[in-house]
C-alpha cells in the first residue's frame, strides 16, 4: 500500500473512533497550543514541544551519548532543518513526529516521551524496527533524528571525523614536520 494509502487508512481508522476524538479534542488542542508556546519560548521555530519531546525521547533511547548541549540539541537541529525545507510534503515530517510520540498509545501505553527508558527501547526495537507496513512510517522520523544528532560538531568529532579546516591544518603540520601524515591525501597514489 502506498504511503498516501496508509495515511488515508489511518484517517479512516481515526474517523471510526470519532466520538473519542470529539471528547479528547479540546484537551488535545490545549496541549498542542501549550506545546507550541513552550517550543517558541525554547527557541524552536517550527516544532511543537510534543514533537520535540518525541525527538529527544527517541534519540535518548537509540543513540549512544547526548551531544554536549543535551538531547534538546537534536530537537533544535531537526527544527532547523524543518524550518528551512520548502516542500508540499513538509507536513508529513511533522505528522510523523506526532505519530511517533503517540505510537505507543496504540498499544495502550503512555506516549513515547513518558515511557521509562528501558520500556521505550523495547517498544521501538519490537515495533518500530521494520521497513514494512504502517510501522515503516517512523523510518522518516528515524532519519530526521539521525540527521539532527550526527550533524552536531561534537558528535562528528567523537566519531573521528575531521573537518576540512582541521584536515588542512593537520596537513600543514605534517608538511612542517617533513613527513606524510598516515592518511593525508598526499599519501594516496
Amino acid at each position, binding site marked *: 500500500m502506498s504511503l498516501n494509502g496508509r495515511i488515508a487508512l489511518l484517517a479512516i481508522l481515526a474517523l471510526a473512533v470519532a466520538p473519542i476524538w470529539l471528547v479528547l479534542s479540546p484537551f488535545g488542542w490545549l496541549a498542542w497550543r501549550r506545546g507550541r508556546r513552550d517550543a517558541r519560548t525554547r527557541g524552536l521555530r517550527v516544532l511543537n514541544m510534543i514533537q520535540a519531546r518525541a525527538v529527544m525521547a527517541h534519540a535518548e533511547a537509540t543513540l549512544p551519548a547526548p551531544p554536549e548541549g543535551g538531547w534538546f540539541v537534536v530537537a533544535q537541529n531537526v527544527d532547523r532543518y524543518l524550518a528551512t525545507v520548502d*516542500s508540499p*510534503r513538509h507536513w508529513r515530517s511533522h505528522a510523523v513526529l506526532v505519530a511517533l510520540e503517540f505510537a505507543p498509545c496504540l498499544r495502550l501505553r503512555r506516549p513515547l516521551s513518558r515511557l521509562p527508558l528501558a520500556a521505550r527501547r523495547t517498544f521501538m526495537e519490537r515495533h518500530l524496527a521494520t521497513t514494512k507496513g504502517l510501522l515503516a512510517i517512523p523510518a522518516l522520523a528515524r532519519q530526521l533524528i539521525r540527521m539532527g544528532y550526527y550533524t552536531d560538531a561534537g558528535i562528528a568529532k567523537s566519531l573521528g571525523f575531521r573537518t576540512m579546516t582541521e584536515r588542512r591544518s593537520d596537513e600543514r603540520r605534517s608538511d612542517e614536520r617533513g613527513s606524510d601524515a598516515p592518511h593525508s591525501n598526499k599519501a594516496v597514489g
Partner: protein
Amino acid sequence: MTKTITTDFAVVGTGAGGSVVAYQLAAAGARVTMLERGAWLHPKDFSHDEPEMIARIYKDGGAQTNNDADMFVLQGNCVGGSTVLTNAVCFRMPEDIRQSFEQHGCTLPRELLQQSHARVESVLGVSPLPSAVHNPATAVLADGFAKIGADHGGFDKAMQECIGCGYCNVGCRYGRKLDASQTWVPMALQRGADLVPEIDIVRIEHTRGHVRALLGRDKKTGESVRIVAERYVLAGGAINTPELLLRSGLHKGRAGKGTSFNAGGIVFGEFAQDLDGFAGDQMCVHHIGDRYVIEQIQNPPVSLALTMPGFYGDHAERMQRFRRMAALGVLVPTKPTGEVFLGLGHKLFRRLFDHADIRYRLSDEELRDFRDGCKAAARAMLAAGAKSVFMPCATPVPIHDEGDLDRVDDAMRSQSDLVGFGSSHPQGGACRGSDRHSVVDEDFRVRGVDNLFVADGSVFPHSVRVNPMLSIMATADFASRSIGDLTPAEHILEGPAHEHRQRTMTAKEAGA
C-alpha cells in the same frame, strides 16, 4: 495583480538540460529567460552543514520518495538543478545506449552527439580526477577490485583544482565543481539571458496546440507571474517536466509513463584499520558491469548515517566505527516501468498533496541484478581486507567471508526489504520517439503543441546506465538545434574552464 514577463524563449529549469539550451539560444542572439524554482546560491552560500544544505538545495529537503515510501528520489532545487548536488562525474552516453535509443525512435546521430559531448566537456573542463585528492579508502577499494578481477578505473569529473573536501553532495562551497550554476547559467547571463529564480511554474496555458503563456508564482512575494514567449522549453527534470505537462492537461495518460532510474543502495565494508574515507573526494573509483555499476561513495557523517543500514543499537554501533568504513554504491539501470502521476490526493486535497506522485517497483530481474551488484561490491571489499560487510537491507546479514553471501538472497527479496534504496538519476517520463504515442517528437517538440519543447533527461526512453549529467547536457546541446533552429558553434571559448586553460597556457608560455 499579475506580473508579465515577455521573452523569445522561456526555459523552465536551469539544470543539466535547461542551462545548456538557454546558453545556446542566448549565444545565438535570442532573448532567453531562465525560470528556476530554487534559489541562486553563490559558493559562499554553501556550507558543510548537511541538514541545512539538504533542506535548501534538495527538492523536498531530500524527502521525495516513491508512493510506497521505500525509495527516495533525489533532485536539486536551486539554480543549476541536480548538477549542483552531483559528484561532477562525467560519463559520455554509452554507444549501446545511443543505439538502443535510436531503436526507440530517440535518434541522436553518432557524429553530432560526439560533437555535443566534446563541446559540453570543454565547458565543464572535464578531466580525470587527480590522485592527490583521492580519499584514503580509494586505494584499498581499487585493490579489492583488482583482486577479484573486476575492471575498475577513476572518474572523469567536471572540476577545477578540487581540494577534496568530501562534501560534493551539498554543493561546492569552494566553487571548484563546474556545475551548471558555475558554467552554463552565468555564461548564458553574460550572453544577455535573464534568470528568474524562486519562481514556481504551475501551469502551461495553451489553446489549439499552441502555448499562450506559462503561469507561475513568485515564491518570495507570492505574486502571480505570467510568462509570454515565442517558444517554451521544459527542462525541469524527469519528475517535474511530466508533472507540469499533467497539471496542464497535456498528454494525459502518456506524460509521466516510462520513467526509469539508475537506482541503488550502498554496501558498507568495515576494515580493521582506520581508512578515513571522508578525507578526500567522495567518489574516486568505479567498476562498470553489464548489469550494474559500482561506484565508491564516501559520505560525511550525516549522509553516512542516513544511508547506513541498521535500526537502533546496531546502527549506532556501526556509526561508532565511522573511520573504518568504506562504501560502494551499487546502481542498477531500471526498465522504464516507473510512472509520475497526479494522485487522488492531488485531486481531492491539493493543499496537502500539491505534488506529483512517483510509482516504481523493482522487477524481479532488476532486484536480482541489484543483489548481484551488492555481492560483487561485497566481494571486492572482502578481498581488500574488510572484516565485515553490511548490505543495504533491513534484515541483518552478517557477512565475514564469501560463503555468507548466499544469505543475501533471502534478505533482499523485495524492494521493501531494502534500506537506503533510491535514485539520484530519474530519467524518462516525457519520452522522445518517432511513433505518435511518444510525448516528444524527433524535434524535441511536445506532440500536438507547436511551440513547446522538452530538453532534459525526461526525453530518454530508458536509463542511460551511467551517471546521466553529461548525457543530458549533450542531448540538450543537440536539442538546441531544433529548438532554436540554430547550429551551435563548434567550440565554446568562454566560461571558467576556458579561462583556466588560457591562464595555464599563459603561465606555461611565461615559464618557457
